[in-house]
């Protein structure tokens, strides 16, 4: 007669869990794991005018969103909803049970709560930015409860995020207060930075300024710009002093495999799907600080990659780019038609003739699995946020410029005074244009552009019509720049994603977004 009361012997069950500090820490680790992911991080760029996703499959078919041809059943829109609530549930499980755990140091208990509440806020931030009003879940739901939720107003969601972030900022250590083993955890600085980002989205500029000043005076922690721009994203410089929040990867043990989608075909060894657009390339200034459409800039359409913003060379791979291979040798990337594997006319290669070099991890394994951390918030953003806020409030001056734009451009590698110095002839709108363009190139491939064009309400301008690749075509069409993809954006509905059809099918209480 066999015993029918079996228990697993190689894992815990809910009956045996929550009896030791490791349990709480392990659940917290899982909260971190689900905070964000590499796919969204990189493919977000293809939702914007910075890049094009060639694939119908990779990146949850972000291409169709960028094209404006999607509905409430779109894969990314369906999946991201569930992704965030999965992360929120993990945080709620931890928050609901962490007080039961015995033997947990009380300071640590508070910190764990702070970390979990930050991560929960990070999820709700994305939820409300994409979907607007969303259900607010602050406890572990039963299936039945989840079937009857209603959407909370965006105001309530924002207040909820604020409360979580205030708590996190209060209990979390500064970056300098963690031991080396804890590098990668959420800090007070991260909580404040996310709060600033939220304020920036809402246009509450005074809050942005207040928080930025906490960074300047050291209250938020110890942050500065890293010495050189390209190095910020290199594996040897992980945890550098510019990083405020990054998604952790560990070589071999926890990796992401997205770089194969944006590297030159010969390096990524797979079909390229994330390709920078000509529009992004054109956004890079000349190294004299002038835009290429300025007749005085010295831009030569026949030699377009000469004398550009130094960040261009560490971000974009173009025809003639000298690629540094992991073994130290270099290889010239040719993207003109008929020039081999990386050519614009090769099926598998970038259809724009450009690739990304930023975030290339040369230590990744042969299958391009990378252990390189992905930076979610870095100090340069605080500087540009501050500048934007100051300008929005009409308080921009040479002092603000020198403390923000100038040091960013210096670090970028500009040396020409015309690029580095403030021009007092600029009016508020000129500065706004400069700052917006600066964000676009400074944060290219960091996923911020799509959020910027939505909060600036310029998506209907930049997400309508053709995006282009390099100049290889018939000069009578778009001046010879290859048409790559036609996009459309309907401002009456596209500023919010639709509530997924799947969710509305499963919960009749969920309302629709306007015009969907």
């Amino acid at each position, binding site marked *: 007669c066999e015993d029918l009361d079996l228990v697993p012997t190689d894992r815990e069950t809910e009956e045996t869990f929550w009896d030791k500090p490791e349990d709480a820490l392990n659940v917290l680790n899982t909260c971190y794991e689900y905070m964000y992911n590499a796919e969204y991080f990189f493919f977000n760029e293809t939702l914007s005018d910075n890049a094009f996703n060639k694939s119908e499959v990779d990146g949850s078919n972000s291409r169709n969103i960028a094209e404006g041809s999607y509905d409430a059943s779109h894969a990314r829109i369906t999946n991201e909803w569930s992704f965030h609530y999965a992360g929120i549930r993990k945080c709620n499980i931890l928050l609901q049970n962490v007080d039961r755990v015995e033997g947990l140091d009380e300071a640590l208990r508070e910190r764990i709560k702070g970390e979990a509440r930050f991560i929960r806020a990070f999820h709700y931030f994305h939820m409300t930015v994409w979907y607007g009003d969303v259900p607010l879940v602050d406890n572990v739901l039963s*299936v039945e409860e989840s079937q009857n939720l209603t959407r909370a107003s965006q105001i309530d969601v924002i207040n909820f995020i604020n409360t979580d972030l205030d708590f996190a900022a209060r209990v979390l250590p500064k970056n300098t207060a963690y031991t080396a083993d804890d590098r990668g955890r959420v800090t007070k600085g991260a909580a404040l930075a996310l709060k600033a980002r939220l304020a920036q989205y809402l246009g509450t500029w005074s809050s942005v300024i207040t928080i930025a000043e906490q960074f300047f005076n050291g209250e938020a922690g110890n942050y500065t710009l890293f010495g050189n721009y390209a190095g910020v994203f290199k594996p040897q410089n992980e945890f550098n002093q510019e990083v405020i929040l990054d998604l952790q990867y560990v070589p071999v043990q926890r990796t992401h495999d997205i770089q194969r989608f944006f590297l030159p075909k*010969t390096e990524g060894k797979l079909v390229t799907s994330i390709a920078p657009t000509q529009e992004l390339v054109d956004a890079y200034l000349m190294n004299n600080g002038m835009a290429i459409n300025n007749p005085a800039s010295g831009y030569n359409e026949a030699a377009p990659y000469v004398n550009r913003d130094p960040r261009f060379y560490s971000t974009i791979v173009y025809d003639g780019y000298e690629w540094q291979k992991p073994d130290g040798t270099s290889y010239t990337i040719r993207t003109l038609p008929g020039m081999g594997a990386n050519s614009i006319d090769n099926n598998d290669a970038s259809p724009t003739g450009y690739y990304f070099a930023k975030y290339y991890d040369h230590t990744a394994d042969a299958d391009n699995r990378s252990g390189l951390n992905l930076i979610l918030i870095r100090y340069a953003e605080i500087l540009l946020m501050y500048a934007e806020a100051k300008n929005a409030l009409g308080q921009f001056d040479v002092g603000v410029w020198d403390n923000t734009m100038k040091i960013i451009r210096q670090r970028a590698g500009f040396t020409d005074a015309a690029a580095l110095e403030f021009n007092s002839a600029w009016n508020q709108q000129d500065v706004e244009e400069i700052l917006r363009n600066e964000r676009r190139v400074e944060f290219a491939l960091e996923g911020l552009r799509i959020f910027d064009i939505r909060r600036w309400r310029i998506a209907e301008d930049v997400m309508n019509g053709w995006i282009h690749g390099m100049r290889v075509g018939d000069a009578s069409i778009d001046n010879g720049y290859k048409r790559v993809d036609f996009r459309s954006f309907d401002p009456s509905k596209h500023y919010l994603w639709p509530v997924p059809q799947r969710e509305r099918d499963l919960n009749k209480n969920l309302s629709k977004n306007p015009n969907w």
Partner: protein
Amino acid sequence: SIYSSQNGSAKKNISIDVKDEPLSTVMDRIEKLSGYSFIYSNSAIDVSKRITFQVKNQNLENTLRRLFLPLGVSFSVVKDKIILKAPATSHIDVPAKYTTAYPIIGQVRDELGEGLPGVTVIVKGTTMGTSTDANGKYTINVNDTLDAVLIFSFIGYSTLEIPVRGRTEISVSMKPSVESLAEVVVVGYATQKRINLTGSVSTIEEEALESKPVTTVVQALQGTAPNLIIQQQSSEPGAQLNINIRGIGTLGDNSPLIVIDGIPSNAGVLSSINPNDIESISVLKDAASSAIYGSRSANGVLLVTTKQGSLSTKPVVTYNGIYGFQAPTFTQKPVSAYEFAMLKNEALVNSGQAPQFSPDDLTRIHNAKPNAWYMDEIFKDKAAQQSHNLSVSGGSENTTYLISLGRMNQSSSFVGPNYGYERTNARTNITTRINDRLKAGIMLAYTNNHIKEHAHTTEFIVADASRIPRLYPIKDSVGNYNIAPTSSSNPLAKLEKGGIRTHDNDNFSGNIFAELNILKDLKIRGVFGGSLWNYQTYEFRKAINYLPYIGGDGQNFIKDYNSKTLQTNAQLVADYKVTFNDHAIGVLGGYSSEGYTENNNQIRKLNVDNEFGFSTSETEIDSRESYNRRGTPWTLNSFFGRVNYNFREKYLFEANFRYDGSSRFAKGNRWGFFPSVSAGWRLTEEEFLSSIKSFANVKVRASWGKLGNQNIDPFQYTSNIRNLPDNLEYGNSGNYGFNNNSVAGAYFSSSNPDITWETSTMIDVGAEIDLLDGALLFSYDYFKKRTEDILLDLAVPGAYGADAPVVNAAVVDNEGWEMSLTYNRKGAVLNHRITANLADNLNAVVDVKGKETIEGGDRAVIIREGFPIKSYYGYRSEGLYQNLTEIEEGPKPGFVANGAVSPGDIRYVDKNADGVINERDRFVIGNPFPRYTFGLTYGLTWKNFDFSFFIQGVGKRNLYLRGESVEAFHNNWENVYEQHLDRWTPTNPDATYPRLTIGTASTNNNAGSDYWLLNAAYARLKNVQIGYSLPNSLANKIGLNNLRVYLTGQNLLTVTEMNNGYDPEISEFNSSLATSDGKVNSGRVYPNLKVYALGVDISF
């Protein structure tokens, strides 16, 4: 009847051909062939009498009848002896106490009304007896004219029991017994005469499994019994097949319970068993037959019985060998390199892009005619397959034995270092009678499966090979592996240089049993058995150097996996049978206890030495895929029982139950009761039919019962917490880390404490008709099954934040019918045998709590109330747009940027007539279930030749293929096949394929629609055999009993509408209806194989 199921050798047919030889010679021959010995008195029988005698392929009974009846000699068979009696009537000595007796006289007639001589007449319960004389007349004394019963028995005729009831003269007519009437069928925990069955049971005899060049029993089962549906996802050596009885009743696992020699086992054991060891397989289909297996019988039960030796039989040595070759049947048909270049240009231009090939390029290709075809390069034209089986069986007076050894070797058709599947089987089955009351035995089987395969993934090797146009060679002129455009690797390099993966799996299965006759009619049987698996997988993937080209496959690793599973079962069964007057009652009761444990571990090391795999300073343990697990134990305790009753074998009743307790459910939800009742009526026992000679047996029967299913992973009633992530999504893999050190996580599984059994309620009505004295057997069954409380992970809102817990939520109906027909015609020269079966079933989801589940992208399936489970779901196409006016007036696809379509694109039905094609316009467009499955076997023997063929097929089935298997230039790949030549162009408006496009321009046509739904009905010549057996006289001269050589072929011919190079037999679903997305439904499969082989059967 002399046919008891233990006498294996009695089933061997006898052929003798002598002219003018002594009777003793013939008798010697019979002794040798049958294993029976004659007992007779020399004074009574003249064995020196010279006779001419001929029988062909007859069983023992018929042989004896043909030999002795003309001689007037009567015979009877007792155990393994044939007792011969002189022609004269001879009275058995009557004990003195019966001397005050009343004589009864009468005559026994045969079916033609002639007096039947030599019939044994005895008084039931006594030793008093006599035989009929030459006219069939007899006289016998009984001491009680009221209660006495006379028993009339004669070989080849049905035994009669006639109550005397005061009569003094009793004349009877005896009917020839038909083999089918005596047939005994293995049922749950017992055997039963087929005529007394009230449930639906199909039996597959060893003949159906023999001489087929297949590698597993499961393959051989296909088409042998109605509604036993075998499907395959892959034909790769060692691949598992789906086994399914009567279709799909649950949204979970639909595999039947497999019981081998009484011990519940698993599909892995069945597909590893030596086909030559199998005596019969019973397929239990309805509730009446399966309910005794209770909670695991909802999907039917397969009872496998292995062979035994026979008592008092000299050792018989048998060798069966087959050697043959396999060749791929279906592969895609690529267009020529020149056609490819033209079509590619056409597709690019159609898609608004510049052509790739210049006129000069085209001329060059046209002249050079490159014709590489990767599929030909990676598959061999022929690959060897062989099997050898050697067995010895026999028995002494009290002990029977069977020892067998088998070896099977199937080479893979993949090019590479000797890939293939080898199996070694050994078995010993021994039973001994310790005394009159006690019998004991042991059955032990060992199997080793050894599979050696490439270290990569077959789907990608095939996908890579089939997507490369003929333009590009697989190797360049100096022998380097080429990297063609659209590919980052070379499939041939993966096969030849990419390393190996071996599976080395050992199994011990068996049982020991003891059976005690406590009383004459009451026996108890104790069994302990089980199955022990040891699995070992070693994978060494080597980095491939593609220089001077740029390719992937640069990561090497070693993976070592070990697992041990043990499934045990202890049973105690009591069986009581009693007969009084016209009533027969059987009662069976038992207890069974089962357990299962599984332990496994794996280690994966990256960056090892690329030649030998040892660790270097670069080597790292991959903690994501390195683990130790102490698996998923489960236990099951059960009480079960059966009562059957029949009145004169005319009215039959039976009831079964099982009461199961399973560890898979929480206390309180754990025990389930599964009853069944059934009844049968044998019309041939009624007077109105018994007078019609040609009806040997006509029976109608009906059953009702409840069956269970509990096939879910253990511990789903409580939330489990694991430390490693199990899903690798969003480009991420592995646990989180801090400071570049990985840290453990805690992952809560979804759980539901309330889960309990799935319950199927099934009714079955059936009829069996044996006509023409048993030459024609027909059976028909209709069934209806409703499965409730189906366990599934019902879709939950995303806001729930976790995977859906398993709940008892759904209801599914399943309905179908099946018929089978067997016809035997034994002619003077030719013997024909036809067996045919035809079946149908279809399920429908009745209730999923109103929640629809849609899975998949371009190929979507839906679970929707009112439709079959996982019906195909998509747009309904209505031809191709022919011109701009049609497009202007037609609906706009919402999923295409700006709704832009062109002439030659697929037009979809605008279901809700809103002018836009979107999700709301989707229909249920079909389902994947095979309907009207059939099998047909025809066998012919002529003199010493035999011939047979076997056709199997499916009358109706849809198959949805997606991706490169149907689309040209799918997702920018370069595949174009012959079926794409008939594409739409302004001058070919009636094309079968839309206009050629590439990339974004294909979005409209690639949407999931019935345009890509294929008709996968087929009829396949599964097997053909032509054999020749040496005449017995000749065989005997060289010391053999039997020698047969034959030619056989498998999968030689297929009739199907599918013309795209894919096998209509492949299934995209496994037995849980899970899809291997991107494998079968994208056509990325190892092709089905045809086999030609030469075989030999020898026994001595």
